[in-house]
């Protein structure tokens, strides 16, 4: 119970800092700066999500889940592919990051992406104990959900981060 509460606090902090980021003054017009990122995308493009997972079943299940919400998806099998894609200029609104993957795991990949200045919403998806979740969160996640993802869990993520169409 205590660990679940600490996790809630961590996530709340992430939400607050995310809201602050988008409401801070910038050169953008009033409309853009007062709207969370998801809503401006609603005007322009569809929401793009990246699924980073080495498990073929989860790749397919999570893609279909997101597609059902009208979100376009791309799939990569490990953290290094995700990092390389961002190096070559790809951008995503949402990244679903698995923890355990070969070549480069989710913790390393998240850390690297944040170092690169990637501001996408990164949601860690895994089946690990709460202590290990803390390390994953501290790598730079915005949020965390236990595997396997369900329609309900995904809906709550999208609502929390204003990613619904």
């Amino acid at each position, binding site marked *: 119970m205590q660990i679940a509460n600490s996790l809630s606090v961590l996530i709340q902090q992430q939400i607050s800092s995310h809201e602050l980021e988008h409401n801070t003054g910038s050169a953008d017009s009033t409309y853009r700066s007062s709207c969370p990122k998801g809503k401006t995308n609603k005007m322009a493009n569809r929401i793009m999500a990246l699924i980073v997972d*080495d*498990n073929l*079943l*989860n790749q397919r*299940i999570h893609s*279909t889940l997101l597609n059902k919400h009208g979100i376009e998806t791309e799939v990569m099998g490990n953290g290094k592919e995700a990092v390389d894609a961002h190096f070559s200029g790809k951008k995503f609104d949402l990244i679903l990051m698995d923890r355990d993957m070969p070549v480069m795991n989710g913790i390393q990949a998240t850390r690297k992406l944040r170092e690169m200045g990637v501001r996408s919403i990164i949601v860690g998806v895994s*089946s690990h104990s709460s202590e290990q979740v803390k390390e994953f969160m501290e790598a730079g996640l915005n949020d965390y959900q236990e*595997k*396997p993802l369900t*329609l309900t869990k995904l809906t709550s993520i999208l609502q929390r981060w204003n990613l619904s169409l």
Partner: protein
Amino acid sequence: MDRNHLQHQVTCMRKSLFDQGYLDEQFIQLEELQDDANPNFVQEIVTLFYTDSARLIQNIEQALNSSPIDFSKLDDYMHQFKGSSSSIGAKKVTDECKVFREYCRAENAEGCIRTFQQVKQEYAILRRKLEVYFQMVRQADVAHTA
């Protein structure tokens, strides 16, 4: 056989798979994702599960037969197997995977070998039941559209 009877058989078998603990709510999640855009989604995922499982079972057999046993590698394979089985809601298989991992962490080779037999057995039982179930579903579908 009339379509109502076939549909009734499908419903009964589906219910027994849940009641007897072979499947859990995650299977329902897969069913909910099946629609006109993905008409065979559940069978597709289950087929992926069979392929993934075959690969992992082979890897685990090899790892268990090697000397000395690399428990870290074994644990990694079983973690993957547990991931796949829980993704389709294969409850009994997932539970056996968890037991295996405990033996792995304790570096108990005998326990691992014994439990692996259980994992394979549960997997084989589930696979047989699902094959029967999906065959029934297909028959009921054919009768429905006839």
